[in-house]
């Protein structure tokens, strides 16, 4: 049995002596699958390819030095390989996925059906506009829904995902200051509990980042914020509800203070699921906000993406809306491709954004309706509060409830047990759950951030809570060995994360090369 540097087994999963080793290494119908390169059989090929015709090399003096090294396999081998790998995957389609601040919700099959309609799936961005009127109308309708739900004046659908949306918003803020000739604003304020992408975005846009401390109840310290505001501050980036799962109650005062100092208010919309249909961000004084279609509006993410991060603009920043966007003129839809003489900064992407995700998101909105989206937020918040209420006597909530769409615990309940947040997460895998977000946000020690979403039924939450309660009690009973040996039932046991980060192996090398390298 190989061990990682914490002395924990890394070999193939087996529940210690209870499960015998098998002859094949397979565990029942869980196949111990080699890499596709290790299944290479020289000369084997799944298709008949024609002989390569004689041709002149057009690379000048550049010549290939070695074979490309594609493995040779028959079609059934390839199909089995990828099917087996997919069986090892864990997805929202397999079970509860309570990854905090990620909103891993069910992707309704109706969305998929709509997105596969040939009129949406087979269009090309360079087609004449007269042949894609339906697709443009869909984008226009989606834009209408997003503006209505947020109360905002304008929207760009182009950004490819959340962080790209943040970049779009901060570029708009920068353009607005520059258009006024106000070049002395060099700072963006970001609360301590922010998503890591917020300070990264500000830095990528050329700003320095100043951190705003939190109050003991997990919210932005308004007085500390006011003290940092001034003629050198371009804006504030805030998530509401924040990553502690708490609504920023003083958001109106926060917006007023930022505006009073001449700055703009960016809202990270990653947690919009908690308030969609119930609160309009424009009413909170927000100037610009991104929306993750792949969170709130149920388009796939976590490897199944792509993401999509439309950005809504209040009147204050609407003139800086990037191109392209859809307009309706004389009954026809048209993409505005040129910024014209306006102050906008250009475009975020070569084309108009993720069409397939627009279809899915609009299918979600229209199938739920306004009342249904209101219910989504209500149920998401109810589920998180149910989890918090059921766990608060055995685990330690970081802040008093009620919470919003996610509940935050820290590791005080593990103090003195020798068990860590990571160990709890690994043991949870053996129980058949994807772990919660760990060690984030950084404002509490050993964070465990749980976002169940509205997808989960009471029965599924009860099973999750029962497992977590039992694990918390087991940790307190001093059974450290159990936790340090987890996970036991997975295809691989505890991975050597340190070794993987310090000495990453980024490329498969054939055994012959390995032997050569060792000489």
């Amino acid at each position: 049995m190989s061990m990682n540097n914490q002395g924990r087994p890394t070999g193939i999963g087996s529940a210690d002596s209870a499960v015998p080793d098998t002859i094949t290494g397979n565990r029942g119908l869980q196949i111990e699958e080699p890499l596709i390169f290790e299944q290479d059989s020289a000369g084997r090929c799944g298709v008949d390819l024609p002989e390569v015709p004689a041709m002149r090399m057009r690379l000048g003096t550049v010549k290939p030095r070695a074979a490309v090294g594609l493995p040779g396999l028959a079609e059934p081998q390839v199909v089995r390989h990828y099917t087996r790998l997919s069986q090892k995957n864990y997805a929202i389609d397999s079970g509860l996925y309570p990854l905090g601040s990620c909103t891993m919700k069910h992707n309704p099959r109706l969305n998929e059906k709509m997105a596969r309609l040939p009129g949406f799936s087979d269009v090309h961005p360079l087609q004449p506009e007269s042949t894609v009127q339906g697709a443009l109308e869909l984008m226009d309708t989606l834009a209408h829904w997003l503006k209505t739900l947020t109360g905002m004046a304008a929207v760009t659908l182009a950004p490819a995902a959340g962080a790209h949306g943040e970049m779009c918003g901060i570029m708009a803020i920068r353009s607005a200051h520059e258009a006024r000739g106000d070049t002395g604003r060099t700072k963006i304020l970001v609360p301590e509990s922010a998503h890591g992408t917020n300070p990264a975005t500000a830095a990528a846009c050329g700003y320095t980042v100043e951190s705003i401390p939190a109050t003991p109840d997990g919210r932005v310290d308004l007085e500390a914020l006011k003290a940092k505001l001034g003629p050198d501050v371009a804006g504030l980036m805030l998530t509401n509800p924040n990553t502690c799962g708490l609504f920023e109650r003083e958001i109106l005062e926060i917006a007023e203070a930022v505006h009073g100092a001449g700055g703009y208010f960016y809202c990270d919309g990653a947690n919009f699921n908690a308030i969609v249909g119930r609160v309009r961000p424009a009413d909170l004084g927000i100037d610009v906000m991104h929306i993750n279609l792949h969170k709130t509006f149920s388009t796939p993410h976590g490897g199944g993406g792509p993401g999509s991060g439309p950005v809504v603009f209040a009147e204050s920043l609407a003139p800086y809306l990037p191109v392209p966007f859809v307009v309706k003129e004389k009954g026809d839809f048209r993409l505005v491709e040129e910024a014209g003489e306006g102050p906008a900064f250009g475009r975020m992407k070569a084309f108009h954004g993720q069409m397939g995700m627009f279809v899915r998101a609009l299918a979600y909105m229209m199938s739920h309706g306004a009342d249904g989206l209101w219910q989504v937020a209500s149920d998401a918040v109810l589920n998180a509060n149910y989890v918090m209420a059921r766990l608060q006597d055995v685990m330690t909530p970081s802040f008093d409830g009620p919470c919003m769409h996610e509940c935050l615990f820290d590791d005080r309940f593990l103090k003195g047990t020798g068990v860590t947040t990571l160990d709890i997460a690994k043991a949870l895998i053996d129980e058949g759950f994807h772990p919660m977000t760990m060690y984030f946000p950084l404002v509490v020690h050993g964070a465990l951030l749980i976002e169940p979403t509205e997808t989960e039924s009471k029965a599924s939450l009860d099973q999750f809570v029962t497992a977590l309660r039992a694990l918390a009690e087991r940790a307190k009973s001093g059974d450290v060995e159990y936790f340090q040996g987890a996970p036991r039932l997975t295809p691989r046991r505890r991975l050597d994360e340190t070794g993987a980060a310090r000495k990453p192996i980024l490329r498969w090398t054939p055994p012959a090369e390995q032997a050569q390298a060792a000489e």
Partner: protein
Amino acid sequence: MTVKFTKDHEWIRVEGDEATVGVSDYAQQQLGDVVFVELPDVGRTLEKGKEAAVVESVKAASEVFAPVSGEVIAVNPELEADPSLVNGGAESAGWFFKLRLTNPSELDGLMDEAAYKEFVEGQH
């Protein structure tokens, strides 16, 4: 020779107008296994309290701030190849960089070992 500590868990060992800087043993325990360290360029001028280096562990990436102002005169050549030195000897072999102090009076605001120990105990 005096050793001082900051509230952000850096230590600084002063010898004349030169000083060696690293992160405290408490900080390395909190970080867990360190997997990457980014050091400042030699010759760079650091301002007290501003970012000087980055330390990344399996749990998180954190900034290391300059405890006092000064010019970087050396960085630990071993650290980029072997970041585990921070875990093995945070306050010895795992040092980050050396500074030539530009304003030694800034040292007065830092904690001595006893005060830092008390500060750390108050963290939980």
